[in-house]
C-alpha cells in the first residue's frame, strides 16, 4: 500500500531520471569539448546582433549552464549604441511568424539582400542551416568589430 502511494505521487521510474540526467550532462560535456563550435556560435551571435546595435565584441561572453531540466546558453553582450539604420523601421524580433505588416521589413531591403532570413533567425537560432547562411552574409558586419 505504501509502495502504491509512493508510486502514485512519484510516478517517474529512476531509469527515466537517469536518461534525462545523462542527456543533459552529455550535452554540456559535448559543448565543453567543442570550443571551436562555441567560438563559431559566438561569432555568429555577435554578427547577427551587430545588425541591430553596436556591440563590444571584445567583451562578449557566451557560456552554457546546466539548469534543472535544460542546458541554457547565457550570452552577455555589452551594447555600445543603436545602429542608426535599424532604429525605426525593423519590427522587434520576438514574435516574427504572424507577420501582418510585412511592409516595414521590406523597407530595409536595400542594405540587407535577404531580409526574410533575418526575420526567421530568432525563431530557430540553433538550426544549423540558417546559421551558415547568416554567417556568410553578416561576416562583413562582424569584421570591423573584431578589428
Amino acid at each position, binding site marked *: 500500500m505504501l509502495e502504491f502511494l509512493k508510486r502514485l505521487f512519484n510516478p517517474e*521510474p*529512476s*531509469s*527515466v531520471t*537517469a*536518461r534525462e*540526467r*545523462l*542527456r543533459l*550532462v*552529455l550535452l554540456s*560535456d559535448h559543448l565543453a*569539448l567543442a570550443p571551436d563550435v562555441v567560438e563559431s556560435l559566438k561569432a555568429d551571435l555577435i554578427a547577427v546582433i551587430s545588425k541591430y546595435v553596436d556591440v563590444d565584441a571584445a567583451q562578449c561572453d557566451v557560456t552554457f549552464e546546466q539548469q534543472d531540466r535544460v542546458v541554457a546558453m547565457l550570452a552577455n553582450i555589452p551594447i555600445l549604441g543603436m545602429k542608426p539604420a535599424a532604429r525605426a523601421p525593423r519590427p522587434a524580433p520576438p514574435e516574427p511568424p504572424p507577420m501582418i505588416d510585412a511592409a516595414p521589413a521590406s523597407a530595409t531591403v536595400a542594405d540587407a539582400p535577404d531580409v526574410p532570413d533575418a526575420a526567421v533567425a530568432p525563431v530557430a537560432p540553433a538550426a544549423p542551416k540558417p546559421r551558415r547562411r547568416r554567417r556568410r552574409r553578416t561576416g562583413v558586419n562582424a569584421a570591423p568589430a573584431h578589428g
Partner: protein
Amino acid sequence: MHELREDPLPAAPPAQQPRGRCIVVTSGKGGVGKTTTTANVGVALAATGARVVLIDADVGLRNLDIVLGLEARVRHHVLDVLEGNAELDDALVSDKRVPSLKLLAASQTREKDDVDTNAFRGLVEKLRERFDYVLIDCPAGIEKGFQNAIVGADEAIIVCTPEVSAVRDADRVVGLLGERVKITLIVNRLRPALVRRGKMLSVDDVNAILRLPLLGVIADEPGVIISTNKGEPLALDANSPTGDAYRKIAGRIAGTDTSAPEIPREASFLDKLFGGQR
C-alpha cells in the same frame, strides 16, 4: 614455460589474413568489467582455434592473470619485454585449457608512465604478425595508460554498464578514440529485473546515447563472480548462459555469428531456488 621453449610460437597466420587484429577493451570508467570481458572474450576466441594473445596494459594494477587463473605461471611481464630484460617468448604465458591462448601480464611494481608508447606500439605490431588476435586490456582513465593501450589498436570494444557514470565515461572515450578506430559495444552487468521495473537503464537507453554496433549483453549474475573467484573464465563453462553470451560475442567478432545480440532474461523462480553454482 618449458613447453613454450620447445614449441615456440605458431607460424605466420594464413595468407589471406597477413596481420592479426588488434582490439583494445576499454571503458573510461573503472570497475565496469574490462578485465573480465578481455579474459572471457579472449578465451572464447581461442577456444575456436584462433591464436590469441592477451596483453594486460594496466601496468601497476595487474589483474588479467588472476582473473584467468594464470597468476602462478607469470615469470616476466610486459615491461621486461619492452625494456629488453626478457625475451617475448619467455614472457608469454600459456594456458593449458586453451592451447592457442597466450597472456602477456602487466608489471605490478611499475607505473603506467614507465611504458614507452612507441615501444608498446612496436610490440603490438610484432604480436600481430604471429597471432590472429591481439586483445589489450586497457586501464581505466584516459591518461597515459589509456593512450598506450590504444596506440596499436584499430578496433575497440567499449565495455559499459547501465549506469550514468559509465555511459558518460564511455561517451568520452568514444570521442577520444576518434574515427580511426572501429568501435563496438558490450553492455555489461545488466539486471533484467531492474530494467523491467524501470530502475535501471536498458540496453536501448545506453545505446541511444552511445550509438555503437552492439556486440553483446552480459547479465549481472553470480556466475561471473564465482568464476573470477576460481580463475576459471565462464567462457570455458559449456553450461553457463553467460559463457554462451561470451562465445557468441567471440563469434560476432570473428564474423562467424551473425545473430543479433540477445538481451539476458530474468532468472526464473526455479533458477533462484536451485541456483546451482558455488
